[in-house]
């Protein structure tokens, strides 16, 4: 049983986020160790599986990679991106990120990256439909890249808030 089947969702890239989270809650209500009626070890295992599947399904890059793997077309995903135009844009983004001086700049960067993610998502659906695996893999790599940039923007925002994550500050 694949993750989509577990969640009762069609095996496709487009996903309704609300339906996904609703199904997630239903599944946890059925399998979570706190719900009486299940063998504790079994519940732990199932609940962990549900969490794992949810993790894959709700992020575009992971969902894309998973879909490719389901079709046995996921080999070589860890290779670098081939599209040099894209790489040029990516470099610019990184530079902007490094040079950002305020939360506002970061917010606009974030919007730009989100637009990229949306466009790449649309592209992936087409690649999948056309069964253009080489393109699909490259799009999946780009999705992963953009997701990482988002994570880096998060970290940069932490720094602007003067958040140094020190567990043992002295007041």
């Amino acid at each position, binding site marked *: 049983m694949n993750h989509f089947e577990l969640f009762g969702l069609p095996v496709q890239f487009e996903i309704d986020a609300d339906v996904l989270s609703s199904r997630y809650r239903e599944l946890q209500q059925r399998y979570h*160790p706190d719900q009486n009626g299940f063998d504790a070890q079994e519940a732990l295992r199932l609940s962990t599986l549900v969490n794992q599947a949810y993790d894959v399904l709700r992020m575009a890059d992971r969902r894309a990679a998973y879909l490719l793997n389901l079709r046995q077309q996921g080999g070589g995903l860890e290779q670098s991106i081939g599209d040099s135009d894209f790489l040029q844009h990516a470099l610019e983004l990184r530079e902007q990120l490094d040079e950002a001086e305020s939360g506002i700049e970061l917010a606009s960067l974030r919007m730009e990256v989100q637009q990229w993610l949306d466009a790449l998502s649309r592209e992936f659906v087409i690649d999948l439909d056309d069964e253009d695996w080489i393109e699909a893999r490259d799009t999946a790599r780009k999705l992963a890249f953009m997701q990482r940039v988002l994570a880096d923007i998060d970290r940069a*925002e932490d720094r602007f808030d003067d958040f140094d*994550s020190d567990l043992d500050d002295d007041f």
Partner: protein
Amino acid sequence: MALLQIAEPGQSTAPHQHRLAVGIDLGTTHSLVATVRSGQAAVLPDAEGRVLLPSVVHYGHQDTQVGYHAQPWAVKDPANTIISVKRFMGRSLEDIRFDHPYQLLGHDHEMPAFMTAQGRKTPVEISTDILKALRLRAEDSLGGELTGVVITVPAYFDEAQRHATRDAAQLAGLNVLRLLNEPTAAAIAYGLDRTAESKPDQIQVVFDLGGGTFDVSILRLNQGVYEVLATGGHTALGGDDIDRLVGRWICQQAGHIHLTPADQQRLAQESRRVKEQLSQTNSVTIHWSNWKGELDQTTFDKLIEPVVERCLAVCKRVLRDAKRQIAQVDAVVLVGGSTRIPRIHHAVEQFFGQKPLCTINPDQVVALGAALSADQLVGNRTDGALLLDVTPLSLGLETMGGLVERIIPRNTPIPVARQQEFTTYKDGQTAMLIHVVQGERDMVDHCRSLGRFELRGIPPMLAGSARIEVTFKIDADGLLAVTARETTSNVHSEIVIKPSYGLSETDTARLLNEGFQYAKEDQQLRSLFEVKVEAERELMALEQALEEDGHLLDPDEHVKMRDAMTELQKALGGSSQTAVEMAVVRLKSHSNAFAAQRMNRNINQALKGTSLKDWS
């Protein structure tokens, strides 16, 4: 096949019994115990009707006092009166950088022990004494033994702190149903209190500033499920620290430089009094040493500004982690006595743009939520909401150059399992050291070290050929278990867990036990493999010995031995551990005799040509 329950005539089948379960808030400055009775959660008072139990323990020469009776000793005998022990739980000696009057023993990387009139006391044992007092109170109130308890911990507590808490509870003879995060407990208390509210899908923020810890959690309440979206905090930030800031100010004003331990405690008490009064009045008069002065609201607010800033910074980050905007927050809940401070209350209101809820006593709300959870987990009720919590800190491994590779990021829903594959870097390498850390920093040195896992028994291979799969599991209590196996040979490597905080033998055994809990079935396979390997080695050695000295045996013995060896060979081809073990035993009865003969012959040869004179 289910068995039918047939009752004796005249006796009805026992109705579902109400099991005694309680929730315990083991707080930095105060602790509470609560239970659910007739569907209502309520805190349990002591004999004098007080619900709060000061988290203070005094170790006198003759006896131990806990709570209100221990408090006066703080000034009379500060070294033996342990206050705020929660700040020491799961912490190594070098972590402890705040002022305190205690004599701590131990190495830098160990969980320290307090030197008291009754000898060494670890933070775990001291917490146990507090928990015992609460247990007694509960059992007296409820008239029976407790089936289980839910104990709350700050959401931001790490592995070591959680383990220490659970150990303390177990030492107190309590059956821990769940380690529940404090903000989640508060959400439960409020969530059920607000069933009248119509909005089906709510985002709730819990802002919990207690005596010694700070937590912020963002939860989603929907379809009877509480889902923690993100959590954050600081395990060393609370009312105690505000007291210290006030105390420092007083000393500066009074010109008082050197304080004795007794002074420190008196100052702490005075600072707290001043802080609490300022929640009611605009200005407070202070007498200290030979000095008299006034502390007003404005000055106090300025003093605690760093605390406010840090709290709000955490709120910002948690919102980001939850991918939510302030505008999406439906309710803000205040928890912990320190939220009574006007500046704090105001700052939260301003930040979230709405009036925070504090209709439930902020001192009690966590215990009440824990009681509701305990009631559910012990089986008294099945219609309560399901809690889906997250791990608050990223889990990672040390890699080349002292960097951290993140395996499980913070705010991952639990229970969770992640796998990571490793390989050997030297030919014939049979062991590997894995250092697990918790934290958000990129360098290992800036993170919390959880333990060094030593994997032994890797079959020797060429460098890079071994495939060691390490599985990290975090259970519903937020506790970690690590298992490992070498996949090319399917050897389940032995795991030796060396916790980073020098814990006792008992603790090490406990940790080992937990590690194997998840590999129970694997253990059997491991055992068979080991037995086989051992037996094969013996067979080989025996073959060698027979080649050299087979002539020592007479033909009858030789045949019997060969038979036994063939038996063993056959058993080794199968998968029955018992068959192998039995064949080994049978073979041994022959091979032992053979070995004795060889030994005698060797001794004789050694002795030949020598006389007794040579040996004296």
